[in-house]
């Protein structure tokens, strides 16, 4: 069944959840939050969309496939540990740079751990969606994941 109320609410909630998820991701290093929670929030938004509308619509809104998110996220996470290797560090050793983003009061500390967290974020979105989409999608037999 599709509920009109739910659909309307979802269209409003999705962007909010995405913003909140990014919020959780970015500030996770300093406040409660992080890649997991951010990812779960974002994924919840899309999952809600899939529940309220249908999987096809959710896929369209997502614009990419969960599989790509997983693969990409994993690769980001794996590679985030590599930079330190170039200057004699250990794998996953943090490498930091200060980024002066316009609109930010203090310089933003950008480092490989954050990159790692972004990888986590993407993976979590990917896996939750891969599962919920697969569970919700009634059109069986479609082998393509991408």
């Amino acid at each position, binding site marked *: *069944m*599709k*509920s*009109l109320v*739910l659909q309307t*609410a979802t269209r409003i909630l999705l962007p909010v959840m995405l913003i909140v998820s990014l919020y959780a991701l970015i500030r996770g290093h300093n406040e409660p939050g992080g890649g997991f929670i951010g990812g779960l929030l974002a994924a919840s938004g899309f999952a809600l969309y899939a529940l309220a509308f249908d999987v*096809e619509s959710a896929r*369209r*809104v997502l614009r990419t496939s969960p599989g790509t998110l997983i693969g990409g996220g994993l690769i980001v996470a794996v590679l985030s540990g590599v930079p330190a290797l170039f200057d004699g560090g250990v794998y996953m050793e943090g490498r930091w740079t200060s980024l002066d983003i316009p609109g930010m009061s203090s310089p933003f500390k950008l480092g490989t751990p954050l990159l790692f967290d972004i990888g986590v974020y993407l993976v979590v979105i990917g896996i939750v969606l891969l599962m919920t989409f697969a569970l919700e999608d009634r059109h069986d037999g479609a082998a393509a994941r991408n």
Partner: protein
Amino acid sequence: MTIAEAFTWGFAVIGAAFCAIAAIGIVRMPDLYTRMQSATKAGSLGVACVALAAGTHFASTIAVIEATLVIVFLLATAPVASILIARAAYGMGLPLWEQTTRDDLRGNLDEGDAPRAAEPDSKG
């Protein structure tokens, strides 16, 4: 006790009280629909009050905005959830309380989908 503290404590106690009432309601009320009435409204209002208390307690911009967001989300999502459950419960044939005086919906519940969307993209 400052004024701000008074507000904080006041809102907190009121909110908590509403929550407690909601909980009592959910236990005491005779059928699902009346229980939902009690739970959704008193509950969300109660939590909203506590959130408001938090906003006044910290009294920083961010805290206020966050508290506001909590309130808005709660007040926006709680009814939606209630509507969904109510319709589902009715669809399941969950009986109304015997003292219910009138039931206009009986026999009129549309099986299948909700109203067809007016806007072309509402189905995504």
